[in-house]
């Protein structure tokens, strides 16, 4: 995958980053999705879960690094071979936590289809849902590049 840049609209994205950062802190110590491994001993399970948590933390750190001081000046994020997969995994972790923490009220069907009446949501739920959509959009952009289904701008 060739590196590519995306320019984001700062006034829209910055408030959503507050939510991402808040959830990322919580995810340092707990799994986004509870891992299941039946029939194994406690030490093995602890090692398994510990390794998952280490990987999750690395992914989240990579995601947060996108939104550094430089980003706050220009609103540009860069994806490349090294960070792409870590970022889409981190987006998945945060989206799972968003559902658990803020979006249960919407129901799973609405989350799957994305059909939600924003005007009827509380401010906190609306912000969480916008964050959920924003992270999905980042994932889609990266996946399209990885899959080669989105041509770079100079080839359009």
């Amino acid at each position, binding site marked *: 995958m060739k590196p590519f840049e995306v320019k984001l609209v700062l006034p829209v994205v910055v408030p959503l980053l507050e939510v991402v950062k808040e959830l990322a802190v919580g995810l340092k110590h707990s799994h986004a*999705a509870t*891992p299941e491994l039946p029939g194994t001993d406690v030490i093995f399970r602890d090692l398994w879960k510990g390794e998952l948590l280490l990987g999750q933390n690395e992914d989240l750190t990579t995601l947060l690094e996108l939104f550094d001081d430089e980003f706050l000046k220009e609103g540009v994020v860069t994806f490349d071979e090294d960070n792409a997969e870590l970022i889409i995994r981190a987006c998945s972790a945060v989206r799972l936590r968003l559902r658990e923490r803020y979006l249960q009220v919407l129901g799973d069907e609405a*989350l799957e289809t994305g059909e939600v009446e924003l005007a009827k949501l509380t401010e906190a739920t609306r912000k969480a849902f916008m964050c959920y959509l924003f992270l999905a959009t980042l994932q889609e952009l990266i996946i399209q590049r990885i899959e080669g289904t989105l041509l770079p701008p100079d080839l359009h």
Partner: protein
Amino acid sequence: MAETKTHITPGQRTAAKLQLEGVWRVVVLNDPVNLMSYVVLVFKKVFGFDESTARRHMLEVHEQGRSVVWSGLREKAEAYTFTLQQWHLTAILEPDEAV
């Protein structure tokens, strides 16, 4: 504090060993969060599936709630389950009772 001693009989040990041997299935369960395109990408990366196989398993997860994505020896099944969990898919291991 009372101490409980557990004695494992040879029969129990054999049963446990057989349980860990044999054929195991890696099953992915549906979740409402992960994107279809994300799940397809993960299946392709983890198992080396082609596009149509990856999509078939993704749709099975989506429509039927679960899909058996791999079966074989326990150790490799564990490795696949771990990798899928790294990608935040709900993956479980279960013994293949048909074998």
